């Protein structure tokens, strides 16, 4: 079988079953995935959703009457493919906890305060070079019931489309040098250390705005058409 998007690239992903992440035990398939060729159905993908992006949707600090509490940050980078080409015109959606580690989601019961000036959702479209940019506040770490004293490292959830249905990616962006990394089964579900490092943003002093906001750089790397994967050869 030949693949226009090499499936070897998928080795960077977590295995479906990662028993340390308890919720995966009953939700990961037990049977092997069935390989199949990429047909036109897999090689095409949605190019809409963009019209719903309103001006200011990429600034999560300006969606309410006042400014949210927390450390204001810029998160920016490129949507790229694994050969380094920018992926233009791709919808990027984000959602995150507030600076106290609390989501507005009704099922989040963590007893940390909600912030009336922060919803925590944003979206944007990458430009012709693949560049995207958000302004938000740094999310807090929060406890979860996976195991005794379990805390998620601070993270921002991202959803990205790319050029086809097989480049679809939902991931989480982490912050550099988080002391919770060694203890987080979701972060560590990615078996390869280098691949884990690709989920961690880098502090970007050059693009930090003095007297206003720190900056983090995060490139989102999607599967590439006719790409030559670096791994697994």
């Amino acid at each position, binding site marked *: 079988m030949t693949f226009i998007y090499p499936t070897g690239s998928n080795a960077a992903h977590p295995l479906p079953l990662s028993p340390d992440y308890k919720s995966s035990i*009953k939700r990961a398939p037990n049977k092997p995935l*069935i390989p199949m060729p990429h047909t036109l159905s897999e090689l095409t993908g949605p190019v809409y959703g963009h019209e719903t992006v309103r001006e200011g949707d990429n600034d999560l600090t300006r969606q309410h009457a006042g400014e949210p509490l927390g450390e204001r940050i810029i998160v920016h980078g490129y949507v790229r493919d694994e050969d380094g080409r920018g992926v233009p015109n791709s919808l990027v959606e984000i959602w995150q906890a507030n600076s106290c580690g609390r989501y507005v989601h009704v099922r989040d019961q963590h007893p940390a305060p909600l912030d009336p000036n922060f919803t925590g959702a944003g979206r944007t479209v990458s430009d012709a070079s693949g560049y995207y940019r958000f302004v938000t506040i740094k999310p807090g770490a929060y406890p979860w019931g996976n195991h005794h004293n379990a805390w998620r490292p601070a993270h921002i959830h991202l959803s990205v489309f790319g050029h*086809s249905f097989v480049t679809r990616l*939902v*991931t989480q962006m982490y912050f550099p040098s988080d002391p919770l990394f060694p203890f987080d089964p979701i972060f560590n579900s990615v078996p390869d250390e280098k691949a884990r490092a*690709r*989920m961690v943003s880098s502090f970007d002093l050059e693009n930090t705005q003095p007297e206003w906001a720190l900056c983090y750089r995060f490139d989102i790397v999607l599967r590439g058409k006719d790409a030559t994967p*670096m791994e697994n050869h």
Partner: protein
Amino acid sequence: MQESAKPDGITPSQTVGPFFKYGLTPTGEYAWNDAFTNSTLTPDVSGDRIRIEGKVFDGDGVAVPDAMLEIWQADAQGRFADPQDKRALPNASFRGFARCGTDKDGNYSFETIKPGVVPDPEGKPQAPHILLAVFGRGMLRHLYTRIYFNDETGNAADPVLALVPADRRATLTAVREAGKPVYRLDLHLQGDNETVFFDV
């Protein structure tokens, strides 16, 4: 900003988690608008309008109330709403993509049209089908499957269904309700009835 060197691989997937609804599928319940709904329909879309519905279950047979499903499909003539489909002019009046979250009882539904025939890489016809991606808490990467239709004679010659053991094909086949344009397909993430998921 400087572009950096060739990446050493793709960004790994991480779970969508339990708290995506306010960002990805708010449906009026949060201070955010939907980029997508559970409908692919536009007012002037042509083709047979159908509804696909079902439930998502985990390995214990318990309904999954926090899954997110996305579909991608061709229009009634088998054309995709993507300029990468070079066979004909893209059909601007059909989007082909929809998203929905399961409700508290694990139910999902999509409003769409019955897709047409799409060729495989060798030009052989594929039976009408819809691509389905399944996301959820506990799922570190989304899963890909396909929805076929029990009233399509082309299923017997479909090159992708042919890759699936015969006794598992029913997990990919939505069943039409008598007298209604409604198809039903339950998804089982695990267990005896486990849905066929594809490595793409």
